[in-house]
């Protein structure tokens, strides 16, 4: 044995001493001192999501269209719940006890630790009452959300609506979590990333009595919500409202564009709905009603309807022929009126007739000859057709025009292959496809494409991609102006003047003058009557004004409007007048306005 062996006791004693010191200290901390238990109860951490206010939406003149209102959701964290007076809570929330029990069970199933929504969008009265009583319901708390509110009941299709995200959207973008809102249609959808802002989170300390004890760690772990960016649209709210007034009780669509910028001034599909219906607790109920409505108010006809261009398309055939030099402004064709072959004319008029007259009289034989001259310029019909198609496409037809338009259809300008399949290769020619000469047949357009086509004519040969949003403003008030491309048409500027003169003659000299002529404004337009096998024909009208230095280009479709000059022309001309002069004064125009407002074309038994 070595002489230091006894020191093992000293070392053992040191070990034991420290252990005893620790145990004594722990006894005082854990058993004697109750203050730590008090601290701990204040230490229940509650993360509260800071939902940013969604960006505001303005019209082109700074008029507020969409803003937010506060809404309150009641949430629960199941593991913090202790027995409470369910009857009283149910009476505050105005729900059945079974429903509350069901929701609580659902919340527990989702997560014991994470909060779930029990009741969405409490009314302000419920919220006030609940705030006072909340201390009686540990585990329950109220979270503030924002809901959309619409300043005017207009432009529902343009704005679109906001709804809760679904699972596939959550899977696709990790930003979202259950219960978040997302733009579903319209510019709410197209500009979702701009509008949504960025969520933040605050951590609060809450005691066992559900009382807020202030911010956790002085808010150092919190992140603030970043406001969404505001949008300034190109819509003219006054014009839009006027359009909706004129179009009430009618099916159809109206699109107006500022030709030089491509900015959409008015964007209407009828019948529409009040955007306020798709907000809040009633949203899903109202949505079902709108979805089942036979008038299909949720369908955005302005970008998805499949209309024929009708006679309005004659302007395009004229321009193509002029560019191809298969006709000149002086070229005349013979018309025998209603008996003319292969396409008859609607009425008798002077003959032979030149370009301006042909447009003015909407002479079908004139445009059959024009169309045949284009196709016939080439040895093979399909080469001529393909050339023609190329021209037509350069007016923005047969293609989608933008990314802002959710659900936009591209219309249809058939490829020659389509006719090859239908008739057999080389077994068709201009005569076979002659209905294209007068805008009937396979050509399908949307009202937006038609308005854009008028812009090309108004601009004498180009368009700017049509759009609804002009600029994005961030929370620091930096304005980011959006850029849009200019697209040049294959028809050169000098070819447009005679066609435009013909369009002016339509408004000034034909019967259309009774419905569309406005004293003091040089309006150039073209009517169209679209055959409809299901009822009265559709009324269409395209126009721009003033003739020189155009400010507005418009396309209007009124379903079952019988003929072009009957409804579409007066509505479009009233809108032009309103937009350019701000008021309708002449007695005959006031009368026309009244007539349009009162007209109801939704009645299935209306006369043809």
């Amino acid at each position, binding site marked *: 044995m070595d002489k230091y062996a006894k020191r093992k006791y000293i*070392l053992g004693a*040191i070990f034991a001493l420290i252990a005893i010191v620790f145990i004594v200290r722990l006894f005082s901390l854990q058993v004697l001192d109750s203050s730590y238990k008090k601290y*701990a109860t204040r230490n229940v951490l509650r993360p509260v999501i800071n939902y940013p206010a969604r960006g505001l939406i303005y019209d082109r003149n700074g008029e507020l269209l969409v803003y937010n209102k506060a809404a309150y959701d009641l949430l629960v964290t199941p593991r913090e719940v202790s027995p409470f007076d369910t009857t009283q809570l149910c009476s505050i929330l105005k729900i059945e006890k079974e429903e509350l029990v069901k929701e609580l069970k659902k919340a527990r199933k989702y997560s014991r630790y994470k909060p779930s929504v029990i009741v969405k969008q409490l009314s302000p009265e419920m919220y006030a009452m609940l705030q006072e009583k909340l201390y009686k319901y540990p585990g329950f708390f109220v979270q503030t959300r924002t809901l959309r509110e619409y300043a005017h009941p207009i432009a529902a299709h343009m704005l679109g609506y906001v709804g809760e995200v679904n699972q596939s959207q959550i899977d696709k973008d990790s930003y979202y979590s259950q219960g978040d809102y997302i733009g579903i249609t319209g510019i709410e959808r197209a500009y979702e990333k701009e509008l949504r802002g960025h969520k933040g989170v605050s951590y609060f300390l809450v005691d066992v009595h559900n009382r807020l004890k202030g911010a956790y760690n002085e808010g150092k772990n919190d992140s603030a919500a970043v406001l969404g960016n505001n949008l300034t649209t190109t819509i003219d709210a006054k014009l839009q409202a006027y359009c909706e007034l004129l179009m009430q009780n009618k099916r159809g669509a109206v699109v107006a564009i500022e030709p030089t910028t491509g900015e959409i001034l008015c964007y209407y599909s009828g019948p529409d709905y009040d955007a306020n219906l798709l907000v809040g607790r009633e949203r899903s109920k109202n949505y079902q009603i709108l979805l089942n409505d036979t008038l299909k108010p949720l369908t955005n006809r302005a970008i998805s309807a499949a209309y024929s261009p009708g006679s309005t398309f004659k302007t395009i055939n004229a321009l193509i022929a002029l560019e191809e030099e298969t006709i000149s402004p002086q070229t005349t064709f013979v018309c025998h009126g209603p008996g003319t072959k292969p396409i008859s004319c609607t009425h008798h008029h002077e003959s032979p007739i030149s370009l301006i007259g042909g447009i003015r009289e909407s002479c079908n034989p004139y445009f059959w000859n024009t169309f045949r001259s284009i196709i016939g310029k080439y040895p093979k019909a399909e080469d001529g057709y393909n050339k023609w198609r190329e021209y037509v496409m350069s007016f923005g037809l047969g293609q989608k025009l933008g990314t802002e338009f959710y659900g936009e259809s591209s219309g249809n300008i058939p490829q020659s292959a389509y006719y090859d399949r239908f008739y057999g290769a080389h077994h068709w020619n201009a005569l076979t496809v002659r209905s294209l000469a007068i805008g009937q047949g396979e050509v399908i357009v949307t009202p937006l494409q038609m308005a854009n086509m008028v812009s090309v004519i108004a601009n004498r040969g180009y368009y700017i991609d049509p759009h609804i949003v002009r600029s994005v403003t961030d929370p620091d008030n930096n304005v980011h102006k959006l850029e849009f491309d200019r697209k040049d048409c294959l028809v050169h500027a000098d070819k447009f003047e005679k066609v435009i003169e013909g369009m002016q003659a339509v408004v000034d000299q034909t019967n259309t003058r009774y419905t569309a002529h406005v004293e003091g404004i040089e309006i150039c337009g073209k009517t169209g009557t679209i055959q409809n096998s299901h009822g009265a024909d559709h009324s269409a009208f395209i126009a721009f004004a003033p003739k020189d230095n155009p400010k507005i280009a418009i396309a209007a479709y009124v379903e079952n409007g019988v003929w072009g000059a009957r409804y579409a022309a007066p509505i479009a001309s009233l809108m032009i007048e309103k937009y350019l002069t701000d008021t309708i004064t002449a007695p005959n125009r006031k009368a026309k306005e009244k007539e349009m407002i009162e007209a109801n074309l939704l009645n299935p038994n209306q006369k043809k």
Partner: protein
Amino acid sequence: MASRNNIWANLDWLTIGLYVLLVFLGWINIYAAVFNEEHSSILDMSQRYGKQLIWIIAAFALAGVLILIDSKFYVSFAFPIYIVTILMLVAVLLIGSEVKGAKSWFQIGGFAFQPAEVSKLATALALAKFTSSYNFKIERIQSIMAIGAILVIPVALIFLQNDTGSALVFAVFSLVLYREGLSGVILFLGLLIAIVFILTLILHPLITISIITVSAIVVYYFINPKFVLSLKAIGISASIFMTFWLTNTLLRLNIDTNKIILISAILASCIFCVYALRQRLSQLLLVIGVYLALVFITFSVDYVFNNILEPHQRARIEELLGIKSDPLGVGYNVNQSKIAIGSGGLYGKGFLNGTQTKFNFVPEQSTDFIFCTVGEEWGFVGTTTVILLFLGMLIRLIFLAERQRSVFSRVYGYSVACILFFHLAINVGMTIGLAPVIGIPLPFFSYGGSSLWSFTILLFVFLRLDASRTEMLSY
């Protein structure tokens, strides 16, 4: 050499049982500390508790392998292992990667390795080897110097890596050396220095020096109980100080009071030195020496504290001593940790029912602060059980060390016990506010493969030595 069966039978299964129990308790507390619902299976490998299970299985396998290695290997290779470790410590300084400000990790693919962990084992082996050699005599200055070198080289290298926590662990080897005959006076002086350091930080230097002076006189009274001499000492000290102080005040010399104290203390000591030499009182001379050393330390504390320690180290010491309180800064961890443990009460809140160790109130809750989870969910009963399990293991290790027949095995055994003790004392001490926050893990408990493996190796090398203790007579 004994047969394999013999080795397994000779293993100390009590220690192994305690080891397995502690590892298991650590694992379920890691599970509770990082529990989240989405991954509620304790076997979920994407989570820390799942990974810890892999570390545990690997540690058990490692233990098995260590038992199969011949015990003579450690004796023969003690110095080579030590030298390789020192080379690794140098290498990590040059090519290591930095984690949390400490440049102490080798990153090889997804695997991280900390040479400082191995250096405890290597140093323990080297120390055991050296103290068991024939020419080792603890009284000889050469032996002390050599031991000093064995310890200082790794400590210095680890300090350079900025890993203060691991470096401080080496202080515990002084306890091992104490068992081997190191003078108790040296330990006592170390303790004295620590006390003076703390006193100076808390109190004014004047008060500290007064306390030291009075203590010196009292100690001297016990050595040489002559009442008059003690009175003389007080009288001389006081009159020298008063003379200086009055001169300073009356002549408005504006000399710092601290300097006056220092000069007075030195002068008084000189007078007593002369007296002691004349009277041949060597004990008095020793008291004066220690006294003067402590006075110098008092004056150097401020300098060391403000110039040598890093700001975060200063802040942790200040927090511990209650000099400055910053419950949301440095003190935040300790404060939250105390709340977590304190709120556990007598019986705790129950498994997985802790609120403080979830939600990230307590930082590093699965590594350095794992003891909080024990405190919160298992209460005083749980914390006491864990401390007693550790104490049981430590006492058992002392018992095993004492029954060794070779100095090598005994020194190594004490090294294991003392290293575990130091980790336990500092880690648990810091969670309950009795030790500064030094980031060292709780053995067998804390999350992490590196620390679990190094403690496993440390322990099982000793258990292997113990199993073949009868063969070790030649050492």
